[in-house]
């Protein structure tokens, strides 16, 4: 039952994903591309934040570095797009490998602050490296296809693949030894050390994987939007959004990034569409309400709703 249900759900999702580009306007496709991007970012954060329990605010740093890595490589050499995207991802992963061992020694707030500040430092550095990055003038990355409809669908496909890959990577990690190690670290890091786990090694690996995914996402984003500037791609809120998404989905599950990102996007879009100049305030209130009333995210809601109480096999009904 559980298995067929899951497969059915997966199949339905696949149908919707494939049908979308053939049936929808460019704007809806753009929205769906954003949804996929959010899923990828949330899944990237989940590796370090969810599994290892390290409150990382480095997503913006990885994203921005990926965007600029790809942007600079592509605008200077004009090589293949895919190669540019990989360069962006690798740049972010290398950065994570470099910085990770230093800041992953910190815990709790200290780590949160250090990771948050890396984005600020990178932004300023890229802003002042005018020769390479264009500085505050931004970087233009003209699209390589002139057909608008095709372009929208191409990026939709790439972003969806990226999201699937990111979630898949999460599943693989959680099943491998590293997943076990990360869970140990999440529950009690000192005990993990006693168990003989090389915690720094696994944490750094998780951080680098998180960086790789967010970096590639940033790189794809850069070529998709066609224009990046330091304030946009290193924005603080880029670090906060994935966290909120995972919290919406429910911390500690593999599906949280998907469910959370989709819910967040719907919410954001609804609020923003209907309220012209107070949408940020309403979004803020929603975040507060979520954390206060639903600390476990939708996972909790799902078990609390009336129809959820009936167990699938029609066994005992909890009251």
């Amino acid at each position, binding site marked *: 039952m559980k298995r067929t249900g899951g497969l059915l759900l997966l199949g339905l999702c696949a149908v919707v994903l494939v049908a979308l580009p053939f049936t929808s306007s460019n704007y809806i496709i753009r929205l769906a591309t954003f949804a996929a991007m959010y899923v990828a970012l949330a899944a990237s954060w989940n590796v370090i*934040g969810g599994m290892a329990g390290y409150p990382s605010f480095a997503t913006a740093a990885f994203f921005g570095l990926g965007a600029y890595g790809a942007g600079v490589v592509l605008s200077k050499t004009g090589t293949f797009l895919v190669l540019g995207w990989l360069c962006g991802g690798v740049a972010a992963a290398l950065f994570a490998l470099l910085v990770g061992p230093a800041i992953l020694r*910190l815990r709790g707030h200290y780590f949160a602050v250090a990771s948050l500040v890396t984005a600020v430092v990178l932004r*300023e550095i890229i802003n002042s490296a005018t020769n390479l990055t264009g500085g505050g003038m931004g970087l233009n990355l003209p699209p390589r296809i002139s057909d608008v409809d095709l372009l929208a669908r191409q990026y939709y496909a790439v972003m969806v693949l990226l999201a699937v890959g990111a979630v898949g990577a999460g599943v693989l990690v959680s099943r491998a030894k590293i997943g076990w190690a990360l869970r140990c670290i999440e529950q009690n890091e000192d005990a993990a050390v006693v168990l003989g786990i090389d915690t720094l090694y696994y944490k750094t690996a998780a951080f680098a994987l998180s960086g790789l995914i967010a970096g590639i996402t940033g790189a794809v984003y850069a070529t998709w939007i066609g224009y990046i500037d330091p304030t946009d791609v290193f924005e603080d809120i880029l670090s906060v959004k994935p966290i909120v998404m995972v919290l919406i989905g429910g911390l500690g599950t593999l599906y949280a990034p998907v469910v959370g990102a989709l819910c967040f996007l719907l919410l954001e879009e609804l609020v923003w569409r209907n309220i012209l100049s107070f949408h940020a305030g309403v979004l*803020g209130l929603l975040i507060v309400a979520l*954390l206060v009333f639903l600390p476990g995210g939708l996972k909790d809601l799902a078990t609390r709703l009336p129809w959820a109480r009936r167990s699938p096999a029609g066994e005992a009904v909890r009251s």
Partner: protein
Amino acid sequence: MLALQILVNGILLGGIYASIAGGFSLVWGVLNVINILHGSFVVLGAYMAFFAYTLLGIHPYLFVPIAALLLFAIGLAVQYAIVNRVIDAPVLVSLTLTFGLTLFLDNVMLNAFKADFRKVNLRPPLGIIDVSDYLPAIDIIVPVDRLASMAFAILLVALLYWLLRRTSIGRAIVAVRMDRYAASLMGVDTRIIFAVTFGIGAAMAGAAGALLSPIFPISPLASTAYLGKAFVICILGGLGSVTGVLVGGVALGVLESFGAYIFGPEHSLTLSFTLLILLLIFRPTGLLGKRGFI
């Protein structure tokens, strides 16, 4: 002489920075909550001072205690009604929660006060002290309003120090800071203490806002910049150490001033944030190297 002037600039700037960071450090230390809302509280205090001056003619310095009281009430309410509910949740939750509150408060201020930049223009202006008028050999200029802010910052920190040391509520706060579980076993109502501490943090922010209303342009958009400074100062001065914010503030002010002078104004921000990361890694207890409880 240029270097001396830059040193003076830095110390005076540091005084203002210290006033911004005091409450933030207290809340972080006692509640173990990074209060992202702090920058917005500073801005709110500045707006209150602005309207008090332009509408009622109350001098911003006289308004400092009023701003502190008003924000104390707001802070107390916010903590008691909202933040207390997540006080035992992981770091992530309280951080994200206060981030949500900031989105809300900043947006409210944007709609209520409009985006126009404002500033208190003291009439008559406080002016400057040209040291060379008294000591011809020393060509240094000191703006009086910054000097006053510095004095107020020191006064505020001293007041807080006294409060924590000499009053029963202060000692309860310190007790909770040291060990919240032991304190609650001793009969301290931690919920109340948390709310009062958060209120004091907000009061300090409000006071800082009033102090800087004649110095910086006031706008809802400024909150993140103030918050960023508070972060760095807390790390520099040692987390949760109230006296440490004076050291941290002045250190940051001097560092930024010389950073801008030596590397160019473009890089002074980068420099201070890089230093923050390095300190976190190599000396997380701050420049003084003590884990302060007060």
